[in-house]
C-alpha cells in the first residue's frame, strides 16, 4: 500500500535537490565574471527565490499526507513548483553566459540611458541573455516574469523585480556592435508593454470601428482575430520606430544586415518574395522598411542617409515603391474584410505610429545636428584606426554623443572600410578576410568610444561639449 507521506517527502526532497543544484550556479558568481547590474539583479532574484523555495520545501511534507486527497493536492502543488523552476532553469544558464565580457555592455548602457531619459521609463533596465538563435528577442512577461511570480505566490517568496526586461541576443555577437543595434528594438518591446500598448490598442480599435462601418459589423471571433493580428504587426512597427527614435538610422541598417535585405535593392521581386509576406506575428520586411523611411524623412535623418553610398540606403529608398506588392500569408484575416482592406487598416495605423512614436521620444531629433557636424571627423578617426571618443573639429576637441558615434560607425562600416584597408600595410580591399577583420576592429573601436563617452559624462564633461 502506498505511503502517501513517504511519497510527498520523497518528491519534496527530489525537488529540493533540483532547486539547490540550479541556484548553486548563481552562488558560483563571485568577483569574476562580472555582470551588468541588471543581470546581477536577475541572478540574485533567482537565488533568493531558490532559497525561499527550499525553505518552503523543508516544511512542506507533514502528517496530513496520510489522507490520499491531501497528498494528491500537495503533489500537484509540488508539480507547479517544479515546472516553475524548469522554466527558470532554461534561462538561467543563458543569463550566466552573458557576463560583461560577452555582451556589448557599452552599447546596452547607451541604449538604456536613452530609454531612461523618458520619464515613464526612467527605471527600465535590461537583463541580456544569450540565445542560440541568430536573432534578437524579448521574453514576453508570461515566459519568465509571470512564471516566477506564480512560483513566488506558491512558496510565499519575493516578486519579480519591477521594470526589469529580459532580452536575448545571439551568443555569436557577444562583443559585436553592428547587429547589436537591434537590441534597441527588443528593448522597445519592453517599453511598449510597460507604457504604450494601451494607446496603440485604442488606435487599432478605432481603425477597426471604421472598418466595420465599411464592411458591416464583424462577429466577435473576427474582431478578436483582427485585433490580435493588427496588434502583433503594429507592435513590431512600434518597436522599429521606437528604436529609430532612440539610436537613429543605425537601427534600420542593422535590420537590413540581419535580414539580408540588400537583395531588395537590385533583384526582381519574384526572387525576394520572402520580404513581401505579412505573417502571423510579423509584418512584411518591405513594409517595415517603408515605415522606417517615413520616419527618417519626418525626423530629418534622410538627407544625411542619402549621402551614404550603400545598397543599404537603396533598400530604404526603394521600399516606398515596392510596398504595393506585399501580400498576407496568414489565415487570421476575416474573409468578409479581405486582404486589401485589412492592409489598408495596417497602413492607417502605421502612418499614425510614424506621428505617435516621435511624440513619445521628444529627443529623437537631438543627434541629427551633431551627426551632420561630427560624422566626417569620426569617420576619419576610424580610417586612421583611432577611437573617436574625442575628435577635433575647427581646432576644438569634441566628445561626440553615443547616438552620433553609433550612426557614424555604421556609416563608416557601409562605405569606409575599404579606405581603412587601403591605409593598412599589405591591405587588400578585395580580400574578404581583410574586410571582415577591419570590420571587427571598427566594432571594437566603436564600442570603446561609446564606453569612453559614458566615462567622460560621468567625469563631468558634457556630451558634444568642447574641452
Amino acid at each position, binding site marked *: 500500500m502506498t505511503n502517501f507521506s513517504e511519497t510527498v517527502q520523497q518528491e519534496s526532497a527530489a525537488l529540493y535537490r533540483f532547486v539547490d543544484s540550479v541556484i548553486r550556479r548563481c552562488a558560483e558568481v563571485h*568577483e*569574476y*565574471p*562580472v555582470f551588468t547590474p541588471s543581470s546581477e539583479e536577475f541572478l540574485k532574484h533567482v537565488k533568493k527565490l531558490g532559497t525561499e523555495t527550499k525553505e518552503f520545501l523543508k516544511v512542506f511534507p507533514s502528517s496530513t499526507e496520510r489522507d490520499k486527497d491531501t497528498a494528491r493536492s500537495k503533489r500537484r502543488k509540488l508539480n507547479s513548483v517544479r515546472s516553475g523552476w524548469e522554466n527558470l532553469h532554461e534561462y538561467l544558464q543563458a543569463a550566466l553566459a552573458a*557576463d*560583461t*565580457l560577452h555582451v556589448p555592455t557599452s552599447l546596452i548602457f547607451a541604449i538604456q540611458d536613452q530609454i531612461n531619459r523618458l520619464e515613464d521609463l526612467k527605471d527600465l533596465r535590461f537583463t541580456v541573455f544569450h540565445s542560440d538563435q541568430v536573432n534578437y528577442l524579448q521574453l514576453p512577461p508570461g515566459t519568465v516574469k509571470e512564471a516566477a511570480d506564480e512560483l513566488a505566490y506558491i512558496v510565499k517568496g519575493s516578486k519579480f523585480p519591477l521594470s526589469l526586461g529580459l532580452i536575448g541576443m545571439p551568443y555569436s555577437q557577444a562583443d559585436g556592435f553592428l547587429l547589436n543595434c537591434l537590441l534597441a528594438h527588443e528593448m522597445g518591446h519592453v517599453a511598449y508593454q510597460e507604457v504604450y500598448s494601451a494607446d496603440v490598442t485604442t488606435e487599432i480599435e478605432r481603425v477597426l470601428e471604421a472598418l466595420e462601418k465599411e464592411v458591416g459589423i464583424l462577429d466577435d471571433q473576427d474582431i478578436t482575430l483582427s485585433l490580435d493580428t493588427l496588434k502583433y504587426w503594429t507592435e513590431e512597427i512600434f518597436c522599429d520606430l521606437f528604436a529609430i527614435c532612440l539610436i537613429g538610422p543605425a537601427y534600420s541598417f542593422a535590420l537590413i544586415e540581419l535580414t539580408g535585405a540588400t537583395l531588395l535593392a537590385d533583384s526582381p521581386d519574384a526572387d525576394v518574395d520572402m520580404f513581401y509576406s505579412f505573417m502571423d506575428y510579423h509584418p512584411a520586411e518591405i513594409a517595415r522598411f517603408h515605415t522606417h523611411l517615413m520616419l527618417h524623412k519626418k525626423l530629418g535623418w534622410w538627407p544625411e542617409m542619402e549621402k551614404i553610398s550603400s545598397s543599404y540606403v537603396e533598400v530604404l529608398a526603394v521600399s516606398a515603391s515596392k510596398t504595393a506588392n506585399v501580400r498576407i500569408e496568414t489565415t487570421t484575416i476575416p474573409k468578409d474584410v479581405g486582404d486589401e482592406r485589412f492592409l489598408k487598416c495596417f497602413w492607417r495605423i502605421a502612418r499614425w505610429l510614424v506621428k505617435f512614436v516621435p511624440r513619445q521620444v521628444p529627443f529623437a531629433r537631438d543627434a541629427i545636428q551633431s551627426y551632420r557636424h561630427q560624422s566626417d*571627423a569620426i569617420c*576619419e*578617426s576610424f*580610417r*586612421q*584606426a*583611432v*577611437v573617436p*571618443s*574625442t*575628435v*577635433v*573639429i575647427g*581646432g*576644438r*576637441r569634441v*566628445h561626440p554623443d553615443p547616438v552620433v558615434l553609433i550612426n557614424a560607425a555604421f556609416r563608416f562600416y557601409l562605405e569606409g572600410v575599404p579606405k581603412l584597408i587601403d*591605409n*593598412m*600595410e*599589405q*591591405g587588400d580591399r578585395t580580400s574578404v578576410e581583410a574586410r571582415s577583420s577591419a570590420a571587427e*576592429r571598427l566594432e*571594437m*573601436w566603436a564600442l*570603446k568610444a561609446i564606453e*569612453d*563617452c559614458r*566615462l*567622460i559624462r560621468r*567625469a563631468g*564633461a558634457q556630451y558634444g561639449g568642447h*574641452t
Partner: protein
Amino acid sequence: MAVIRKSEIEKRLSLPVDDRKSLVITPLLEEAEVLGENSDCDAVDLRLGTYFLLPQVPPQPFFFPSQTFAKSSHFRVHVPLGRYLVVPAHQTVLGCTLEFLKLPDDFSGQILTKSSIARTFMVIETAPWIHPSYRGSLTLEIANVSNTPLLLYPGRFIGQLILLRLSPSDEEEKVRKLSGTYLGPVYPETPKFKDPQEDLRRIGVPESEFKDPGTRWWRDAAEIEAGGHTHPSKASRKKDAEKRARSKRRSLSSRKRS
C-alpha cells in the same frame, strides 16, 4: 631628442586626426588636472583600463613562445570601475591603459610607472617604448614584485607618458601605413609570435639544428585551442603508440625491401 612640454602636447591634441603631427589621448578624464598648470610639465598621467589578461598555468612545464602557445596562455577578465583586481605577490598580469593613444609621426614615447605606484613595488612596464605613429591603448606588463598582494583599481592613474621628438630628417618622411599586427588595440592583447624555428631559419639556423621542446606539447596546445584536453588524453597517447608502431613497421618493411 627632446622631451615634449605640456604646451606642445596641448597644441598637438588640437590638430585634426588626419594631420601627421596630431596627437590623440582619449578619454582624457579630469583634463584640467592632467594638463593643467599644477601637473608635471613634461608628462601626461595615464589611467589603468578595465580589461586584463591573467596568465594561466600552462598544461606543459614551460612557456613555449610560438604562435599557438601565446594564444592559450592567458584568460580575459573585466574589472569595471569601482572594483579591484588582486595581484598576488610575485605575480604578473597584462593590463592596458584606459586611454587610447595616437602618436604623431615625429614623436616617440615612453611609459613609466607612476612613482607612487612604483613605491609599492608594482612595475607596470617592461617594454615601455612607443614608436612614432603608434595607435592603441598601451598594453601594460604589470608585475607585483613585492611580498604582499596588491590591489589594482581600474580608472586610477598608473603610468606617465613621456613624449620625445625625433631628430629632424634630411629627407621628407614617407607616410607610413598602419601595421596590422597590433592595430589599434583597446584591450591588452596576447603576444603575437612567429614560431621560433621560422625566425631562426631566416638567420640561417637549419631546422635540423633547432631543438623543440617535444612535439607532444605542441599538439596538446593545439587541442586546448580547439577546446580539447589540457593533458595528453588516452586517445592521443594511443594514437602516439599507433604512430610509433606504424613507423617501426615501415622501417622494417623498407629494410626487408633493401
